[in-house]
């Protein structure tokens, strides 16, 4: 019985993440269009795209690794979702929150991109591999300030678990974004790279690489990748809300908080041109790294 509620809760979580992630994607397209002085697609355009892809039949494949690529990607986003407390009190989403910690999460998050990179590699399209190398290089860039922010939180509150950090915020009554501001700044700067909007969108490079890693994929493959991307966006936003903004008691607050934090990379991206890969890496090892070091110093003093 307990197992059944767990499984049902997990499915509910995945559906929630899918719906929210997809809607956010659509809203972003709309906002981008408005900034560009276009009308833009409706907010539910992403659903239409996704279900159109799902309905298409696939004619060709390049081998088993390509087929496994999307599945690997899904594993990463769904399993990380299982480890992130969606609401502070658990509620309908009693997942595996207590079974893993932040460092585990960091490593699980790269599981998917690496598996997907392998799938992309088997298609033989050079653009896929170029996109992957850019993506991995950029990841090395933003992971450093991101990890610094996390380590700063860990040493400040003597815990490495997400639930522990949420409890610490509930007890003190202040959000971590105020009690450890430098960590928050470093984490937000790292987030710019994590979401791959401009100026860090050279990975997909929509105009010249034909979407980078996902080129050569269509139909159900692309549908799976797209939904995985949406779920993963939700995962990352919820993680930020959980560790920096005290989590959320109910869905409305969760949506408010995640959306407001989502606007940071989106709005920054709309008005930015694109960095080359090495420029992106150097960007992350500049100010974000500086704030990361500040966060570490701040956390070890207080």
């Amino acid at each position: 019985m307990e197992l059944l509620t767990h499984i049902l809760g997990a499915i509910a979580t995945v559906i929630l993440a899918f719906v929210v992630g997809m809607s956010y994607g659509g809203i972003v397209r709309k906002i981008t269009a408005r900034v560009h002085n276009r009308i833009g697609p409706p907010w539910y355009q992403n659903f239409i795209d996704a279900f159109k892809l799902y309905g298409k039949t696939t004619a060709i494949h390049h081998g088993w690794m390509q087929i496994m690529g999307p599945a690997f990607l899904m594993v990463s986003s769904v399993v990380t979702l299982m480890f992130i407390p969606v609401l502070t009190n658990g509620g309908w989403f009693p997942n595996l929150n207590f079974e893993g910690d932040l460092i585990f999460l960091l490593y699980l998050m790269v599981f998917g991109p690496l598996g997907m990179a392998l799938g992309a590699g088997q298609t033989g399209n050079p653009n896929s591999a170029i996109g992957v190398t850019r993506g991995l290089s950029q990841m090395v860039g933003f992971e450093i300030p991101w990890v610094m922010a996390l380590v700063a939180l860990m040493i400040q509150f003597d815990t490495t678990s997400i639930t522990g950090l949420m409890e610490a915020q509930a007890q003190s009554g202040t959000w971590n974004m105020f009690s450890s501001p430098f960590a928050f700044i470093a984490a937000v700067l790292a987030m710019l790279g994590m979401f791959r909007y401009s100026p860090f969108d050279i990975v997909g490079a929509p105009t010249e690489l034909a979407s980078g890693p996902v080129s050569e994929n269509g139909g159900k493959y692309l549908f799976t990748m797209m939904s995985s991307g949406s779920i993963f966006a939700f995962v990352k936003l919820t993680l930020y809300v959980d560790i920096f903004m005290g989590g959320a008691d109910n869905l409305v607050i969760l949506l408010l908080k995640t959306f407001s934090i989502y606007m940071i990379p989106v709005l920054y991206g709309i008005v930015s041109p694109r960095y080359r890969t090495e420029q992106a890496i150097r960007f992350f090892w500049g100010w974000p790294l500086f704030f990361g070091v500040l966060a570490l110093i701040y956390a070890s003093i207080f």
Partner: protein
Amino acid sequence: MEMIYLIFIIFLGGAVATYLLGKINGVLRDITFLATLIVPAVLFYTQVSIGQTVDFSMSGMNLQWGITDFGYIFAYIVLGLGVLAGIYAVAAMKGKENLGFFYSNYILSIMAMMGILFSRDLVSFFIFWEIMTWSSYLMVVFSGKDVQKVGIKYFIFSAVGAYAMLMAIVTTYSLTGSMMIDSLVTAYPGFDFSMQLLIPILLLIGFGVKSAMMPLHVWASGSYSHAPMAYTAVFSGALSKMGIYGMIIVIVSLVSQIPEGHWFREVIAWLGGITAVGGTLWAVAQDDAKKLLAYSSVAQLGYIIVGVGVGTPLAMLAALFMAVMHGLFKGTLFMAVGAIEKQTGTTNFTEVTGLIRKMPLTFLASLMSIIALAGIPPLGGFIGKWMLYESLVGSDHYMLVIVVFFSSTAAFLYCYKFLFGFFLGQEEPEWAHVKEAPAMMVVPMIIMAIGSFILGVFPGLILNPIDAGLQELGYASTQGRYWEMSMLFNEWGDKVVLQPILYTIIAVFVFFFVFVVAKNFKKTRYVSTKDISSSGEIPKAHENLTFSRGFFQPFLRAVEPLMKHQIDPLYTGFGRGMEAIFDFVRRIYTGNGQTYALYAIIFAVLLLIFKNQLFGL
């Protein structure tokens, strides 16, 4: 007869027998070789108990052999890897020349490593250490290529390490009058401070060379890539761990006893961190798989050194667990490279691509080992990484944890390069003839890959003996505090429960795999990697679109400042300077009788001039 003697007699006899049989009959030689590896391994695990010792004296020295709990962990690595790589070697080296010599050297290496673990006194320790160095040196120059460059480098560094160790041993003997390791440990707190510092430093130079610690690592990339791959699996997987074995004993048993030991350990930990970063960056820059794995080994040993240097119970667990894991996955990867070299004749990423459909089992083994190397759950590499980070965060090494994390994130780059370079990308007609490696090569790889999978879910299997070994070194038991059979804890009680994670991962993977494949697979047909649309154009059959040159160029451009400083030119400069001095000395000895006569006269004149000062006349 004592079982311990018997094991070494079998090793020695087997080494001689394989060498001699190598000249007579190939099959007999192979069988003897495998028997010499497997029989002592079986005897060791069934007949030798921990704590059992044998004493004997040789030319007035009292020597003692016996295995300890701590040595037992490393015996797993040495014998396990030794036997599996031995089976692999028989198939991999088939058709090569001078095989009797190769096999007997292989056996001698395994014997020497077991001897090091058995030695309870410094004399036999040193003797076995030298046997190990010599047999590995002969393997490095086995191919006969670049002996001057690579072989000499390894030899000089090993010699420096050995002399440092010898000095430490002699100093110990003059101070304590005993050659026993235990008596060194008990007498150590009574030494004066300079001796307390000198002995560990000298020993650590010796061990640091073998474990490729910065700045003593420069031999590693060449030597690992020049030895035959069947041996490199052991060389990098097990032989380098002997350095770690010694290092742990020195740091835990000796350095911890001095009050200032704290700083000493910090230095070691940071050297380990720098080793990890340097090794990783250079690995990313390599286009040759052997070189890539060699630098990666340097980096992985760096993590282990970090753990040893930090030295909290959790860090030690991490270091030892990573030592076992490194033996497993790096052994597999070197074997995979060996298999590819045997089937294609090259190990360069820019030459060979698209092997996934031709060598699927090798790919599977490589994939699992790479996932373990990258530290991604649910494979075993993750356990070691997790414990290392938790121990670093928990013991206030905030900057070091960032350094280590940077290195292990950058490791994803070369992980992908390895898999993509060999197995993925465009399939070229040039490699259409390639077949999967023989079963005797594939089976050991698969066994080891499965091993790293099992340890990823049930780390307790190997943490149990590690715990016993650490208790022998004076640590409190950590079971239940930091780990259970398939659970991990950190200092603050946060945990990772591995089994539900594994089940969730499998369930989600299977679901989406079926989701993508169901109703879909029958309708789809396989098309070759030439049948793609790149930028709206379909490439022609002869067009080679493989992306393998300058693979991580943007990243390397970004980290250029970090890679500008190399230690190798410094050594070369030092070598040149020494050569200049030697050259000058050589010029004195001109070989001309008249010059020597001149020297004699000058000497007599100088004596006359300074006779008052010299003789007080």
